[in-house]
């Protein structure tokens, strides 16, 4: 509260604390890494080792790390690292689409609810948002995708579209959250005297709303929700791909279906590591080389680190004390 009068406090705002800097580095690093991996994935589309096409070469399933396969191979002998990178392609653009859906639906809805009071349109929008948020998120997404799958004649041909549909639905399920947060922010901004001063200064309502309220004072709420939605989409996509029906269908790779394929390796690896007949380090060595431990760990870590990074960025945007 005292920040406006206190030079010391504004210095604090200019220099984030080490904790915040860590969050920012992790978050931005994740976004950067995902983008680089997505670009790399574009060049991998025709790589035979990915297993998208049938090849004549002899494949070794569950091989350990080697020079040919840096992380080893999966249960069908496909290169783990390549599939890990190629998986980014299955959520990157649909995830961005989800964020765009939130952006383009929530900002007008939030403005309508927060900038002015009342009106029939605001009532209708508010009703729609309440209806939307009363649906459990996953149910909304699954039912939507199921309906889509039932409607198209050849689901295999509509795979890509289904992923974007998924993105749209995840985005839609987050529209009430951002719209409400934005409306609340606008309502509090509206009370501040600088808005009255802008009006007294002769600014139009449009530039007060766009420049003084949305662009300068609300952008980080919007960006924060976009990060959250991207993370949420990644979670939904990998969950559905793991479960099988509505996610990314094999042979196309996704972190979710990669995990699904090596489910049994978890038990095998456990048996090898904690088995009675060898030491712990020998067991670990065996688990990595024969038990497919990396095939389980690599996609799991990829999911955890990516979602964690996106949440960290969102957290950074929420906690940084902006001017």
């Amino acid at each position, binding site marked *: *509260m*005292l*920040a*406006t*009068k*206190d*030079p*010391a*406090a*504004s*210095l*604090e*705002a*200019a*220099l984030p*604390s080490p904790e915040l800097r860590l969050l920012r580095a992790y978050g931005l690093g994740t976004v950067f890494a995902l983008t680089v991996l997505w670009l790399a994935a574009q060049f991998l589309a025709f790589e035979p080792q990915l297993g998208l096409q049938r090849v004549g070469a002899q494949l070794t399933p569950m091989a350990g790390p080697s020079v040919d396969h840096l992380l080893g191979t999966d249960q069908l002998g496909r290169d783990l690292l390549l599939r890990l990178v190629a998986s980014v392609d299955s959520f990157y653009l649909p995830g961005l689409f989800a964020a765009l859906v939130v952006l383009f639906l929530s900002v007008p809805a939030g403005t309508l609810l927060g900038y002015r009071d009342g009106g029939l349109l605001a009532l209708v929008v508010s009703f729609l948002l309440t209806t939307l948020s009363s649906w459990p998120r996953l149910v909304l997404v699954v039912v939507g995708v199921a309906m889509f799958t039932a409607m198209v004649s050849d689901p295999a041909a509509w795979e890509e579209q289904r992923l974007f549909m998924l993105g749209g639905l995840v985005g839609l399920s987050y529209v009430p959250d951002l719209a409400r947060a934005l409306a609340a922010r606008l309502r509090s901004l509206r009370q501040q*005297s*600088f808005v*009255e*001063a*802008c*009006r*007294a*200064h*002769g*600014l*139009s*309502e449009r*530039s007060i709303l766009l*420049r*003084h309220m949305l662009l*300068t*004072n609300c952008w980080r709420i919007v960006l924060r929700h976009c990060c959250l939605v991207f993370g949420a989409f990644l979670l939904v996509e990998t969950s559905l791909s793991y479960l099988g029906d509505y996610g990314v269908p094999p042979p196309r790779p996704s972190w979710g279906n990669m995990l699904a394929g090596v489910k049994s390796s978890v038990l095998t690896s456990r048996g090898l590591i904690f088995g009675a007949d060898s030491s712990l380090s020998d067991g670990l060595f065996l688990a990595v080389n024969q038990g497919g431990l990396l095939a389980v760990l690599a996609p799991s870590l990829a999911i955890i680190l990516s979602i964690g990074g996106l949440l960290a960025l969102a957290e950074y945007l929420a906690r940084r004390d*902006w*001017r």
Partner: protein
Amino acid sequence: MSDLLLSASELTLRAPIPASAGRLVPLLRDVALELKRGELCGLLGRSGSGKTLLARTLLGIGKVQGARLEGSIHYHSSANSAPLSLLSAAAPSPPAGWAGYIFQDPVAALDPMRTVADQIAESIALRSPGLSRRELLDRAEHWLQRVRLADPQRCGRLYPFELSGGMAQRVCAAVALAAEPELLVADEPTSGLDWSLRRGLVELLGEQCQQLGSTLLLISHDEQVVEHLTERVLTIEGGVLVSDQDGCLPRYSRPLEKRPEGDVPEHRLRLLRARGLRRSFVASKVNEAPVEAVAGVDLDLYEGELVGLVGESGSGKTTLGKVLLNILVPDEGELCFDGYELPGLAELQLRRLRGSMQYSYQQPGAALNPAMSIAQHLQETAQLHCGVTAAEAPTAALRALADFEMESKGDSFSGELSGGEQRRASLARVLMPQPRLLVLDEPSAGLDAEVKLRLLNRLRQGQGSESCVVVISHELELVSRFANRVLVMYAGRVVEELPPSSLDPAAAAGELHPYTDQLLAASFRSIRTIEPERRPKDPGGCSFRHRCHRVAPEVPLWQRCTNEEPVLVQGIGAGHRVACHLFENAVNLESQ
């Protein structure tokens, strides 16, 4: 027992500032200082000189991120002789509540979700733990009484946002004093207070500190405030303590030039005509009647005029200022600016007119978007009102900043500026379109004497042409030197209009409205009780009669004062009009 309380030596604070790109810049340099117990000490300096930073560093509050502090600060306890270092983490810390701080912005420093009494009780509990809640609240009430708030019981139940500026300042004082601190720091406690309360508050702080045996460190840019109270004055400039002396002060202000008399042009064009303006606000309590902040004002403003609007806080000055520019739409009345009827004017037309009528807000930072830089604000204004293209806008903004010596601050955000700099930035913004009617609400609050002088001289230069400036202020001296015409407001009405030369404390009794008499006297008298602002709509009669010192129920005139509302009539001498039954009689007698 030593009488030393706090000593600091070779105190240097280096911190990265936004403009320095991570480089450490010394903000305080080699400060050495000793504070004795029970001393009343002033800390004087211009805005941005490091007054607040020094006080905060001494108390160890509001640490600056990435800052490096060198030197030593020691706290000398009255009981044991070894001084405690406040900078080392290993040393035992002084007793809780040994120091109190009254913040510059009183409302912001109070917790908005808790009542006043609750917050004072918290301070009391710091010193005397184990008291029951009932006792705590009783003592809180006692403290409200000690800072001279009328009706302490009612005040205690209020929330900070229900307080007027003056009341909030006193509540803050009560919160700080209730912990019975050994050292009380008051950071610009008088900014934004009206002049009849300012001196009172400072004296109150001094008196209470003496009763408690506490040391008072009074931070201010206003040498009159400091001089009035303190025995010793420290002066700080650019983070360096430049002088430490008893009594006599270094003067960095020149007196205002006296305005030449009779320079008001004869044939002037009327810019604004207001008739029967009224504006009321819904009361904060459900069952109370709406408060009429402006209760029927007739006013004409002419080109080339400098008008002063004075009155105590709560008299409706600010509301009138906003209503005149149609920022607050009047409930009733006519308002005509330059031929346009303002209420009901189409929005687009009103917006075009806004360039020629500007309002400068009382709180210096209030008019600035906290997330937009100062230069961006000015570029926006240049494009909006000065017909400047986007490419030329940065140059125009820089020129406007240079007028206020703020060139280096263009990229700053309002939160990074000191109060005085915020004020200059908002003034640059409202002056940029060269408005024909300019309303300045307390323009000198937060400005040091030199900047104030430059601002006023600049306004006076512009005055020769065709603009009209209305200055709302509680500084009678400033208004009387600066304005051509002074309006006195009480309870939403203009009760007197007079030439500035009549605004003289030596004026004979009976020449001025009794309220103006009291205002003039109050600026020289000490402590007054503030009444909580409660002003129900008066059904008739003079609203000032209960405070009037010249009429009482025994006087025959009282009947008229209760039943009949006085209107502005010709008073004594040219340019003097007054709304008081006493004067109607006097004039009638004269004419007979």
